């Protein structure tokens, strides 16, 4: 298996080179460069700007600039500096936002699994009943539901009309950092976006769990357990669920990747300062060092997530061979 992992990691190198080249040259087509916005509305001599351009290497051939960018990333993990937001290093900015996205993603995952596993099991156990039909209907609806529409309606209902939850941001800035109230305020801000994301994210888990359990109900080991007199509840919790959870385990890889990539739609609607919102802001302000770094990072994380998922699957079920 290690051979496979190494090979998959090696394949990742040309893949990332390709993406980095694509985003780099695409962003060169955007108006503005690393010096735009530095002087703001100040009246600076064109001569000085030209000298600075020369100094920063902005007049070098594109290929050379690209090489320097990649080299900086590989050797020093340096993605350059932002064009707006006070020319801070891109990595600082991303790191700051990532903490918010990770919090949101963890709570989303908790809600998602807490909702999906019972629903999947119930649907399978009561197959064909009204409860099962209702759960299946919910998965169909959640599959078709555009994220934007659900998020807006949730925000409108629970944020604006009922005022149960705050309508924007990640924390109440007036509170003292580190205090208990600060912590509670964070959670309070997180609940609505994470429930919205979780409601839509359960579909795949419920569907897989339900069909896996229904398949397992007729398998030999269940018949054996039944004939031994194992109570039905125990059969489900101890025997069936363990086997049926396999495909869900492989999804954990993507879930881990999703922790860091954030959600563009959810974060934008709930004005939640995470990675997704950072991407949208960086694009609208033409801050391409940030957007380039984010695309590259997301692509890398998705690829790693897929790899981790495959490896996890072989760990849980040694019969599966990753090729």
């Amino acid at each position, binding site marked *: 298996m290690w051979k496979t992992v190494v090979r998959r990691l090696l394949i990742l190198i040309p893949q990332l080179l390709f993406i980095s080249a694509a985003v780099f040259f695409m962003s060169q087509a955007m108006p503005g460069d690393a010096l735009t916005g530095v002087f703001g509305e100040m009246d600076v001599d064109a001569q000085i700007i030209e000298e600075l351009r020369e100094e920063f290497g902005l007049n070098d051939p594109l290929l050379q600039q690209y090489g320097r960018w990649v080299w900086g990333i590989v050797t020093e993990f340096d993605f350059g500096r932002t064009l707006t937001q006070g020319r801070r290093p891109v990595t600082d900015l991303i790191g700051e936002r990532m903490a918010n996205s990770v919090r949101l993603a963890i709570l989303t995952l908790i809600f998602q699994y807490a909702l999906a596993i019972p629903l999947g099991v119930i649907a399978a156990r009561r197959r064909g009943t009204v409860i099962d039909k209702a759960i299946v209907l919910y998965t169909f609806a959640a599959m078709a539901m555009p994220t934007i529409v659900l998020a*807006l309606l949730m925000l*409108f209902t629970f944020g604006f009309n009922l005022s149960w939850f705050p309508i924007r941001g990640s924390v109440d800035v007036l509170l003292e950092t580190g205090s208990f109230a600060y912590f509670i305020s964070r959670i309070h801000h997180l609940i609505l976006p994470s429930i919205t994301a979780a409601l839509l994210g359960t579909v795949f888990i419920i569907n897989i769990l339900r069909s896996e359990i229904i398949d397992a109900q007729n398998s030999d080991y269940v018949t054996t357990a039944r004939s031994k007199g194992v109570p039905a509840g125990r059969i489900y919790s101890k025997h069936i669920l363990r086997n049926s959870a396999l495909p869900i385990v492989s999804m954990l890889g993507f879930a881990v990747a999703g922790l860091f990539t954030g959600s563009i739609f959810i974060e934008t609607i709930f004005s939640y300062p995470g990675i997704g919102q950072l991407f949208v802001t960086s694009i609208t302000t033409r801050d391409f060092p940030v957007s380039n770094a984010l695309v590259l990072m997301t*692509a890398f994380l998705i690829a790693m997530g897929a790899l981790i998922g495959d490896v996890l699957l072989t760990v849980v079920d040694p019969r599966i061979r990753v090729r």
Partner: protein
Amino acid sequence: MDNLDNKVDATAIGDPMDKKMLKAEKRKIAFTTVLWKEIKADKLALVSLILLVGIVLTVFIWSMFLDAAEVTRMNLPMVNRPPSQEHVLGTDDGGRDVLNFMVMGARNSLNIAFFVTIIAASIGVLVGITAGFYGGRVDNVMMRIVDTVSMLPFLMIIILFIVIIPRYGIVHFILLMSLFGWFGISRQVRARALQQGRLDYVSAAKTLGTPNPVIIFREVLPNLVSILSVLMTLNLANNVGLEVGLTFLGFGMPHGTPSLGNLIALARVPVVMEHRWWQWIPASLLVLVIALCINFVGQAVNRAADARQRLV
């Protein structure tokens, strides 16, 4: 094994035209009839279908009577009026009638979703069927490329493209969305084509000397119709949502162009969301109903295409 293969080929050569026509005829009747039965058996799918047809007809016929310039013209004295007798759904931030804007927007959004689905499916079918039919090295190389490309964060890349293209309009938008929407279809089609390519009728056609492209499009493609109709219906629902999402973020249809996304995007301003419900809630609900209906019909199509899941 050799012997068996020869025998199969021999019978297939026997009367290939007749047999093929019979098969095609039978399948054609079967799939549409089964589909109709399946929809009739599922009340939800039936209601969805009727509702969907109703919405589509209303939207397209109504917007034929609307003048695009009239609908999008700003009317500043009439800005942000609540619903009244004259404007049933009120007016938006440019004084435009929300109802008319929504009808025209729904037509545009449906058109976009429809064309994106068709173009993406065509690319997906072309790639998938080629990889699956030829198999071996062709398959390996093509699917490796598909795997690589489909790992890209495509939402981000679409947005990046949209920012770069200097003067983009509906056509650019459709092409961009299609360019990143065919991976799933190509995988499914490839799996089917791989299996079909090993069947007797293909070997028969090959033995007769039929050129491969002809076999692919005349013989194999019709056998993929059922799976394709499933994938395309489900994609259609997603594409409606994607247009709305991208436009909402400000990276979709240009501002002021009638589209459901542009109406919903008004809700980005808290004041609109809280106090001017008539501007964004009707469009949101319309998107919701359209997406749900397409999906419920799609589930019936799915069951019709997969004999194991049929209700009837």
